[in-house]
């Protein structure tokens, strides 16, 4: 062993602790993380190869009959969605004119980018996934992520060719929501289980019923307004407790969706939550 090895290890340990503290408290190291991301990208791409090969084989080995059947189903679905979209156009126009009357112009339709899931974080204590779009596609930290059924989560870490998404079911995550039926506001926090969210600080007398659809309220300033988040599955009123215990099931297929949408909302005039707290103090 080289001399002074123990001292060297102690030095590295102190250096690492300082590095971790800086990384935890400030954003100075984000460019470093981004640059190191390039070195990890090849391994990440390779890890997905078996998955893409299996998908490719599945697509190529399916029978013509099945493809025709699938095509028919998709065409039918498309027709239904087209009909909805027609009504949507008129509703959107109506909404805009009403908003103009209220002099509160707002964009209803957001720009989106399609992405697919390349990996699920193996750490069982967090609910995170990794997607195949990164900083070079314009992805930013805090960007909302949807799947075909509803809100899925937000981007928390951007690398050049991939990003890390924190799902709404993570126990460190909370979304401001409102009941679609009557606009009652609440906060939906993750429980760590993929199929359950919990509404916190709901008064016992609040008008929430089982089966109510919860949509994002847009109040946190991070998620756009009006995307479906969850459906209420159970309400328990404990006498003596100040708040009702309300459980809800996410509408997004957190454990199944392969293709996701990154939403580009208008960021102008929006204050990041961190700065908001800074000015409040």
């Amino acid at each position, binding site marked *: 062993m080289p001399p002074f090895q123990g001292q060297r290890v102690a030095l590295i340990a102190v250096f690492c602790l300082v590095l971790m503290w800086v990384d935890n408290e400030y954003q100075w190291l984000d460019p470093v*993380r981004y640059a190191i991301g390039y070195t990890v990208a090849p391994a990440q791409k390779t890890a997905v190869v078996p998955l893409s090969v299996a998908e490719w084989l599945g697509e190529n080995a399916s029978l013509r009959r099945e493809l025709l059947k699938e095509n028919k189903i998709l065409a039918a679905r498309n027709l239904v969605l087209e009909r909805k979209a027609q009504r949507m156009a008129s509703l959107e126009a109506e909404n805009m004119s009403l908003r103009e009357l209220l002099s509160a112009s707002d964009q209803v339709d957001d720009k989106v980018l399609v992405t697919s899931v390349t990996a699920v974080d*193996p750490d069982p204590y967090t609910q*995170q996934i990794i997607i195949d779009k990164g900083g070079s596609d314009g992805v930013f930290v805090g960007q909302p992520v949807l799947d075909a059924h509803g809100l899925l989560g937000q981007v928390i870490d951007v690398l050049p060719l991939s990003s890390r998404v924190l799902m709404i079911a993570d126990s460190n995550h909370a979304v401001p929501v409102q009941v679609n039926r009557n606009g009652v506001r609440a906060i939906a926090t993750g429980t760590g289980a993929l199929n359950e969210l919990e509404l916190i600080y709901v008064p016992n007398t609040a008008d929430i019923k089982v089966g109510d659809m919860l949509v994002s309220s847009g109040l946190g300033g991070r998620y756009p307004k009006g995307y479906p988040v969850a459906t209420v599955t159970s309400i328990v009123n404990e006498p003596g407790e100040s708040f009702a215990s309300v459980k809800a099931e996410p509408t997004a297929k957190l454990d199944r969706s392969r293709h996701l949408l990154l939403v580009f909302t208008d960021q102008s005039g929006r204050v990041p939550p961190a700065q908001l707290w800074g000015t409040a103090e």
Partner: protein
Amino acid sequence: MKLQSVVYILIMLFLAFVLEHLPLPEVISWFQPSWVILVITAVVLYAPSAFGLWVAVPVGLMLDVEQGSLLGLHVLLIALHVYLLQLLYRRMYLFNVLQQAGVIFLMVMAEQILHYWAVAMLREDATPVLLFEVALTTAFLWPWMYAIGYRSLRRLERG
């Protein structure tokens, strides 16, 4: 050291990173071994003079980015691992594979405790880490790593 050995080590490290990233079902993910630690163990035992503490910096930073942990956390863990190996490698050569696996089990568990301490010091909401599961699977896989890592490297050097 021969060029072949260097290439072989780089390939092993690359594969370890691929395995770290591999999507796994929830149940198995609790027992995800630390592949990179396994490779580093074999490499340090193979050439303790060439692979010193410096290995921890590039590999640790890459692992931090890959896992989305605080930058420096895995540098610290790998540096400690390399240091412990340097303290013990003479004894490790005399051990049989099972005894080596036992030592690796204890080392990985100590590092997981350190992992927990470091995160708990810096964040209030420190999640518990997996002490036994990771150490257990890592030690369990050591005999194979010993064969394909250490022994093959030795053979490359000789042949």
